[in-house]
């Protein structure tokens, strides 16, 4: 195991990543207050920002980028499965009740 630890980022890099995360969060909060200006784009942008933060934390802080492919596939597999299943449930519930 110890050999793949060599590639891990340095503390400085981690702090930089955290700053990026902080800025993204600030943009998110700003977007909440500027909803009137940004309009319909607010929600998509918010989702993209959240996904971005998610990927940064999983990839760098959890070292998924540096991890075995097996682990990667498992985690993304669970993610995709969940997204597809729950998207179907949400769409079905939204259409069946109010159409």
């Amino acid at each position, binding site marked *: *195991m110890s050999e793949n*630890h060599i590639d*891990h980022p*340095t*503390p400085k890099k*981690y*702090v930089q*990543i*955290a700053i990026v*995360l*902080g800025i993204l*969060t600030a943009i*998110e*909060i700003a*977007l*909440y207050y500027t909803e009137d200006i940004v309009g319909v784009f607010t*929600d998509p942008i*918010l*989702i993209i*920002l*959240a996904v971005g*933060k*998610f990927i940064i*934390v*999983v990839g*760098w*802080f*959890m070292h998924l980028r540096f*991890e*075995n492919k*097996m*682990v990667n596939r*498992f*985690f993304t*597999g*669970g*993610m995709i*499965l*969940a*997204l597809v*299943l*729950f998207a179907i*449930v*949400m769409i079905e*519930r*939204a259409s069946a*009740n109010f159409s």
Partner: protein
Amino acid sequence: MSSSHSYPHEPTGVETRKLGMWVFLSTEILFFGTLITTFMIFKGRDFPGIKLTDVYDIPFTSISSFILLMSSLTMVLAHNALEAKDQEKTRVWLLATAMLGAVFLAGQIYEFTEFYHKGFELSTNIFSSTFYVLTGFHGLHVFIGVVLLLALWGIGQRQKGLTLEGGMNLEFVALYWHFVDIVWIVLFTVVYLI
């Protein structure tokens, strides 16, 4: 897993406990997925009564979200310090992570109490039920995380100090903690901002 001698294991090269944790986290996606789905389904519904938007306080939650986000940084720094075999620094960062987690929890408790005072209770209506169960389930995860971090910190006080191997190892807990953080990244957007 230093035992078993000539017995082969880990053909994938991933430490078994870490692999187990990743498998666990993958299923956690489904736990939170179900909760978020429920929240989203009802969020779009038209039902009379008090809603989350009537009671919440975005600046407050933003700050506590930011605190939890930063606890991921301190966690990864603890991990980094341990890889550099710096026990002292590891313990400091661990404690910092646990403290940030505790502050987040305190914030959540305060928030819940405020909401209750404003008449937004668990069984008030479907909006309040889905909100409390979703964020409460996450809060429970944070609580368990804080307990694990403190346990780890306690183990670190012993002579042998912390290692990256064996039962309760730091990497194991770190993975869990980061996961709790990314769940909140999603929840903050889904519950509060959208």
